């Protein structure tokens, strides 16, 4: 039986891991390769590395970092941040990335999803969506780290991304991110029911129970979190043992 995945996310700025609280007030918390290797050893199922300053700074440092990650870490990893062209993705693929995630660039140019899937295969393409709850079933897709609302709506955009060739959706609720009160389970469950590709839930993890809820109520395929792992509030082996006890299939 396929295991539910636990995915620590490492936000990278200037080659170091950071985690913002609602994307503001960034603190450095460690070396990405060292931290990634530690998480892999502890039982993380995948890793995500997001270059949060990629749009503003040179990309070469990040590509070099990706190569070091690929050399040292023996589980799959996704990289994202500032990828807007095929050649950006190709450089990361050649550096050893297993998947790339695209966010704002896909909103601006949805054809990019088709092009990426055609060039590298759907399994390589994660479409990340940051959205804010508006009203009822309506969620507004935002870009640039949640700062700018767009015309797109969460569920129709997720469906479109799937149809264009996305291999997975990484959905971050901007309302839940950083506040540690649990994931956006209702929206996640709706998305998981409407789409036939895996959904990675992000934003809101504060306790082990939140992960149980995101896999049961939220019907997510994977749960992603950052600060609770970086600040050692939850240790991955404890989390997996807990989920296993709760009857959720995880890789121990």
């Amino acid at each position, binding site marked *: 039986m396929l*295991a539910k995945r636990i995915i620590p996310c490492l936000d990278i700025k200037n080659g170091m891991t950071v985690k913002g609280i609602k994307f503001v007030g960034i603190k450095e918390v460690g070396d990405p390769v060292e931290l990634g290797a530690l998480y892999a050893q502890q039982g993380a199922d995948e890793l995500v590395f997001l270059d949060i300053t990629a749009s503003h700074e040179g990309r070469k440092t990040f590509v070099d970092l990706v190569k070091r990650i690929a050399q040292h870490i023996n589980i799959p990893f996704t990289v994202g941040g500032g990828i807007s062209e095929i050649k950006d993705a190709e450089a990361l693929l050649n550096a050893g990335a297993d998947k790339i995630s695209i966010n704002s660039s896909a909103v601006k140019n949805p054809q990019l999803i088709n092009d990426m899937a055609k060039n590298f295969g759907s399994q390589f393409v994660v479409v990340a969506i940051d959205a804010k709850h508006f009203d009822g079933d309506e969620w507004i897709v935002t870009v640039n780290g949640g700062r700018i609302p767009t015309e797109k709506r969460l569920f129709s955009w997720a469906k479109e991304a799937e149809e264009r060739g996305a291999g997975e959706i990484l959905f971050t609720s901007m309302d839940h991110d950083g506040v540690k009160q649990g994931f956006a389970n209702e929206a996640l469950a709706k998305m998981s029911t409407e789409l036939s590709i895996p959904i990675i839930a992000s934003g809101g993890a504060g306790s082990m129970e939140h992960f149980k809820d995101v896999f049961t109520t939220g019907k997510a*395929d994977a749960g992603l979190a950052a600060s609770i792992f970086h600040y050692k509030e939850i240790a991955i082996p404890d989390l997996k043992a807990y989920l296993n006890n709760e009857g959720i299939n995880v890789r121990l």
Partner: protein
Amino acid sequence: MKIAIIKYNAGNIRSVSFALDRLGVEHIITADPDEIRNADKVIFPGVGEASSTMKYLKDTKLDELIVSLKQPVLGICLGMQLMCSHSEEGDVPCLGIFEETVNKFELPQPNTDLIKVPHMGWNAITNVNSALFDASLEGKYVYFVHSYYVALGEHTAATTNYILPYSSALHKNNFYATQFHPEKSGDVGSKILENFIKL
């Protein structure tokens, strides 16, 4: 000991190379027929689409070369599928090393458990029965990404259950293959690669 990783138009070749680096195993990435033929062991990796990759293998005559190899050969993911007799992906005849065929996963109807295709993530290998595995690997989790599967057959060397039980590894004579990615499967995957290297 020299391992040749077959270089062709497919992804994840570098990941396999990095995994061998971590194990301290000397290797080359090559499309040169002599280098491949003279290697102690050969790895045939792959992420991609079956029919276009088969066409590439035929155009470069790598197809005949792979079939004729006498040393231990390990196919990974698409590499394993291409070693079978036929793939539904692009409806293409493959190398025919294994008589098994490659079929697309069909979602159950109704899909009450919200099963997704591709089969992506960690799943268990059971009934392991080739030299790639030892008893300690029974039931362990390894990393998969695929939309097509090899049915159970005479050469099944490990079974995984996703929608249905299927072949997650194959073995026949000097040919070994895994549907999962040992190079991305943590310590379990490293052990499987080590077992192959020790053959």
